[in-house]
């Protein structure tokens, strides 16, 4: 493994960019989940009016 698992170790800048991407996409999917949760409750409330 050590001999072949060489190539591109990520640069510090690339790691920072990846951390930003990770944080952004985690927040995005969290927001989608929250939207499904609240969306269905609102949907039922609207239907009941």
């Amino acid at each position, binding site marked *: *493994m050590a001999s072949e*698992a060489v190539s591109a170790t990520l640069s*510090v800048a690339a790691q920072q960019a990846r951390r930003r991407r*990770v944080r952004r996409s*985690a927040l995005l999917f969290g927001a*989608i989940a929250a939207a499904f*949760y609240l969306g269905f409750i609102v949907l*039922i409330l609207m239907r009941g009016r």
Partner: protein
Amino acid sequence: MAEHLAHDAAHDDHDHKPHGWRRWVYSTNHKDIGTMYLIFACTMFFIGGGAAMLIRLELFKPGLQFFDPQFFNSLTTMHALIMIFGAIMPGWTGLANWMIPMQVGAPDMALPRLNNFSFWILPFAFTLLISSFFVPGGAPAGGWTMYPPLTLQTGASFPMLIFSIHLMGASSILGAINVVVTIMNMRAPGMTLLRMPLFVWTWLITAYLLIAVMPVLAGAVTMMLTDHYFGTTFFTAAGGGDPVMFQHIFWFFGHPEVYILVLPAFGIVSEIIPTFSRKPLFGYEAMVYAVASIAFLSFIVWAHHMFTVGMPLAAQLFFMLSTMLIAVPTGVKVFNWTATMWKGSLSFEPPMLFALAFLFLFTIGGFSGLMLAIVPADYQYQDTYFVVAHFHYVLVPGTIFGMMAGVYYWLPKWTGHMYDLKLATWHFWLSAIFVNVLFFPQHFLGLAGMPRRIPDYAVQFADWNMVSSLGGFGFGLSQLLFPYIIWKCVRGGVRIGNKAWEGAHGLEWELPSPPPFHSWTSPPSEAVIARGAAH
């Protein structure tokens, strides 16, 4: 920040493994968290299985034998909740934790602290749920579907049920976010989407399903909670609410949930069959598109679970036909698995045996699903043991066998030892025989009209119930072999090299066995990735 990252990089090769209880409680390591998920799932499997054995004990003979009907209903409800949310879902998350970083060339999951948090929610959720057996009125008994108005009449255990469902849902959503974010952001350079192993693909799609539907279940039970305690009438007909609406919302979650439970098994079988056929997977891209199609279709078929509530003819036709459409991508998968084996150099080690049993028996579950999709037929089958037989064929030899196949496939990688193949083969044959003795007669019982969720039944159903119960005891007892085989393997055995199986491909087999505490501290090279992605 930059200095911090540079410091991290400089220490990447150090083994920061903590020791003692801190290693587990504070763990942010994907393998340790994966191990905890798997141990938790196995524990829940035996608790849920214990409830199933009690159910079969009561049904061994007609008449009330051991339990009062309320407790029997609690057993069926808790068996389902524990098996679905406690055994199968955490089991898949455990396998995802172990395998996804290794398979995509990542050092760990993208969000390790969130990973720790999403695991540690679960013991609290299930302690709360299981302890509801000991409160006045007993555990929830309204079925795992929690339909109002029945479930709204639950006693002191009602808030325990609702809170534990919320906790399980939160754990699943956080775990799913972690999986998606890991796969989308942490793949090694050169690991393109269409080079990913099928297990990673199926988990990616499963995670999308989880993010979409678990919040819907959470919303439904939140509304139940407010109906019970805050005077709202979302689902209470007396106040203008609609109990059938709950069924629609529940099954909007519930049907994709079936695929959440089974898609990772598709991925595992797609890894195992090529390995033990010594051939690349037939139609890799078709398999990916088939899984995506199944996931999409799973959102538009929910009302086939509730044809008998009454709905317009157009709706009945739509849900019947869309359900039948699922057979097309599923057929593609079954065809491709069979075509992979065609003229292959087959061998039948325990993972392959479990994968083949999955293939045959899951297909039986699929066929009975097609029968249930036909509206006029469903009117007859609804709430009979035929439905019980159908979904147990999907979930036991489907999901559970798929998970066992995965554990037997990767266990040598995890431990560095080969397990006792003879004992594992015994485990397979006992499971495969008894699972059919247990569930196949339930088709006959259902077609003869035996209703589900009853502790007593008419005498004409006695013979097949006795056979089914004997199968249940045999299946339950034979599962004790599984933890024993794992424990024995963890303690020692024949040492293996990087590859446990000579036909295996994939990045995980490029790592030593057992893999180091941090898997891919530097990304694998293009050559290693190309060798691993031999499909």
